């Protein structure tokens, strides 16, 4: 696929400028599907716990491409394109379930749980009439099988031939900080999805933007869940596409926000029963109250106090993105901790006190730049680099995303 590089030139300033056409160019969108999502990247598909038994399956996505993730009778995990070799119909029509084999409803072609075609209805016809010629090789059109790697209870998949080994792709900081959260066998709590009215990249930029978190989300700031003055840090992987933003739960009671007169530090605002929402325990024993971790292109692992979730960013068109949330605890949780997770879940999701704004903010940009394809956004907080740093008054992780993006896209 050819991107019109003569028409589309990245601004000469580099990573500190992002041209607005990246959110509305159809050719670019199609090229992303091929070069990023179906290219040499690892996409998070589901939690290991979403395949609880042998012969279970879960529908997922590799970018726009529908995928089925399965656990076979021996417990091994596989993933393959959710497309019949015959006429391209979806094979799996349920979100999750159990099955010994996958049968296409259209013409009853059959696949085993690795995605290998095992049966074609009336292949030799009936009574010597009809059927498929013997030189037809439908196996050559079989659904594409992904390479799978499970890490700390997270199942990743790739179609790329040159995708680096997963732990290398994640980088040492991410390996450590993923293991930190996924400290025990996962128990699912539930999920939902949120339709974001924007290009997928605007949502991912929002997650990587540690500068906005306590400015847009007043709930965070007022209750000192996360202020930029709280001790914490920002880590960006070598390639740029993976980031971790974290902060310590203990507040230093600074007054920088109030002194700056920021909207999000309205001191008159108080909750009647904040403990019913915010009471938490330091279950990880390291004082980190908040950790947001992303893996390029579209994976988010979230720890907000005891509220743990994974989010899958699924592109659904140029200006539409589905954000699939799955919340979890651990099989070792006692009733008290299980209850805290459910209460703190009020903070997240489409109705979350601290996350409801994110979907809308990405949409505000999508609508705001509708006539500005020749304009650029400014990504210069914290300088021009993509290195890890202590300050979260920085857009280093956003620049890191674009560094990795441009690498994959050849832009």
């Amino acid at each position, binding site marked *: 696929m050819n991107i019109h590089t003569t028409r589309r030139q990245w601004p000469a300033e580099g990573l500190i400028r992002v041209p607005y056409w990246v959110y509305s160019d159809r050719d670019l969108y199609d090229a992303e599907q091929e070069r990023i999502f179906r290219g040499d990247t690892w996409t998070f598909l589901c939690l290991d716990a979403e395949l609880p038994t042998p012969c279970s399956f879960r529908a997922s996505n590799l970018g726009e491409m529908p995928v089925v993730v399965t656990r076979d009778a021996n417990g091994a995990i596989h993933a393959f394109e959710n497309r019949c070799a015959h006429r391209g119909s979806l094979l799996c029509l349920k979100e999750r379930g159990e099955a010994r084999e996958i049968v296409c409803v259209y013409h009853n072609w059959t696949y085993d749980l690795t995605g290998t075609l095992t049966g074609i209805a009336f292949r030799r016809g009936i009574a010597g009439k009809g059927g498929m010629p013997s030189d037809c090789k439908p196996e050559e059109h079989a659904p594409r099988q992904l390479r799978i790697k499970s890490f700390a209870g997270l199942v990743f998949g790739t179609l790329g031939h040159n995708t680096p080994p997963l732990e290398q792709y994640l980088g040492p900081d991410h390996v450590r900080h993923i293991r930190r959260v996924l400290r025990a066998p996962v128990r699912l709590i*539930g999920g939902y*999805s949120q339709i974001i009215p924007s290009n997928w990249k605007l949502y991912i930029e929002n997650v990587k933007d540690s500068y906005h978190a306590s400015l847009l989300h007043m709930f965070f700031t007022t209750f000192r869940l996360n202020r930029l003055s709280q001790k914490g840090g920002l880590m960006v992987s070598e390639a740029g596409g993976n980031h971790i933003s974290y902060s310590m739960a203990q507040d230093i009671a600074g007054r920088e926000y109030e002194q700056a007169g920021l909207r999000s530090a309205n001191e008159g605002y108080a909750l009647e029963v904040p403990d019913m929402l915010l009471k938490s325990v330091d279950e990880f024993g390291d004082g980190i109250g908040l950790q947001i971790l992303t893996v390029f292109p579209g994976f988010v692992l979230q720890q907000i106090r005891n509220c743990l979730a994974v989010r899958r960013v699924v592109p659904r068109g140029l200006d539409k993105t589905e954000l699939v949330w799955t919340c979890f605890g651990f099989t070792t949780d006692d009733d008290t901790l299980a209850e805290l997770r*459910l209460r703190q*879940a009020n903070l997240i999701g489409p*109705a979350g*006190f601290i996350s*409801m*704004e994110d979907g809308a903010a990405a949409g505000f940009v999508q609508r705001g730049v509708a006539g500005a394809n020749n304009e650029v956004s400014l990504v210069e907080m914290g300088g021009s680099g993509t290195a890890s740093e202590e300050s979260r008054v920085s857009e280093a992780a956003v620049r890191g995303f674009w560094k990795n993006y441009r690498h994959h896209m050849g832009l």
Partner: protein
Amino acid sequence: MYIEHVARIADLNARYADTIDADQLEAWPDFFLDDGRYRITTAENVAQGLPLSMIFATSRAMLRDRVTALREANVYEGQRYRHVLGTPLIAAVEAGGVRARTGFIVARVMRTGETMLFATGCYEDRVVLDGPDGARFAEKVVVLDSRQIDTLLAIPL
């Protein structure tokens, strides 16, 4: 007796929905008992036996906190709802209240003029009909038919 239950719960839900649609959110918690429970979940979570909610409150004070947050803290574009409710189906009459299920659809009207079908689902209610303050919800579980929410869910359902 049955028809009286239907009529009284239909009336309670009609006033409840009208209060939300009229943007009188400050009056919304008063439809609940002091220790009333309110949550929003999806049919998918219910079918899987999973306890997660989008909103989870276990007291009227928590509902007041949500209204305070919506008025003072959270940022969202101007929008209104229009609820259309079905007839309550009385599931059981118990010591702790009458259990009823009421289907609803909610249209969302944005400040830009865009109107969309925002949510469908049912209220799984437990109603105390003859408390000191009249009929109140001891529990209201909003079970959404779909797992998808467009953009955000700010105003309660």
